[in-house]
């Protein structure tokens, strides 16, 4: 059992996290300053200076970091598909 759940489903079964488009990201790091859930990690000494370190910390359905991203480099999965998937998992677990 994972530590956290969302709507009764184990968080790590739900695919919801930001994806960084490195061709757009300008490493302004506004997303890391903005997100209180420590989803991102900055590695100043690496070639790729920003990664999604803790995807399961990301609040399911929250896309606020993508709305403050200047170069529009963050994207999220489709909300409807995620909702459907959560419903399916709940059904499977209820029946299983």
């Amino acid at each position, binding site marked *: 059992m994972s530590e956290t759940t969302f*709507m009764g489903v184990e968080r790590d079964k739900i695919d919801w996290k930001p994806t960084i488009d490195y061709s757009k990201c300008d490493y302004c790091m506004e997303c890391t300053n*903005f997100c209180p859930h420590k989803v991102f990690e900055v590695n100043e000494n690496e070639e790729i200076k920003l990664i999604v370190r803790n995807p399961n910390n990301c609040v399911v*359905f*929250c896309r606020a970091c993508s709305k*403050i*991203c*200047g*170069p529009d480099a963050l994207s999220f999965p489709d*909300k409807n598909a995620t*909702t459907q998937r959560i419903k399916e998992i709940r059904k499977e677990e209820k029946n299983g």
Partner: protein
Amino acid sequence: MVENYAILPCNGLDKCAGVISGEIAKKLCENEKNEIICPVFYRVADAKYNKIAGEHPLLVIDGCPTRCASKLAAEKNLKISQRILITEEAKYHHIELNSGLRILENEKSLIEIILNGLNKAEAKPTKVSKETKASYNFDYETFQNGKFIFRVPKNSEVYYNENDCWAYVVGNLARIGVTDFVQQNLSDILYFTPPEIGAEIDQFGEVGDIESSKALVELISPVSGKVVSINESLVHQPEMINENPYELGWVAEIELTDFESDKELLIGFDKYFELLKKKVEGSNG
């Protein structure tokens, strides 16, 4: 019409959208009744611009979603009357901006479109928000953590999602909003972007956003349906969400399309109250 305004552009020089914001501000200030606020000088010259901002309604022009001009307005405690986000306008009008800093044909067209929109006489909204006559009477349970008090309605008609939004369901209508957890976290709410009247919203779809100097929160609808009214008072007084996010600070009313199915993924008072306590305790570290 934008006249007698204080105009605060981001004037950012690292993206084309920032350059456009400065250009639009300059054009608007060709009308001598408008006053421009230089964001760079404002950082060091409070006195001059505080007076201008205090005497005029404020138009903020942000280039990109980093919203530097809005953040500056928040830092200076200015009330925003109107706001434009250049990249959003470009997307809306299907205009691609160049990656450099020059104003070329596309940028010129966008500037013209935006100026036309701002300078035309106040357009009458085509869709009118009609607040329904349904009555909403809240009965609260409270939870205190330090100096913060969190109210949670315990009415059986009120449903919650785990994203801290509520829906008070009466018949085929739901009034929705955020909970005290959101408003306490944001502290002073400075800006509210409402959803569009008539918009069809999926469950967990976005129904506007609210912003403080600390953060921006996307409102995640607990229910699916059509937006039939919005709380228009919030556009000018978003701080009403801080006062009471359930009564004065409600966000929108939604005509429900499939509440039986939506309900599957919603929780009632008991579960939300427990979740809220956990979140509050968790956010204390």
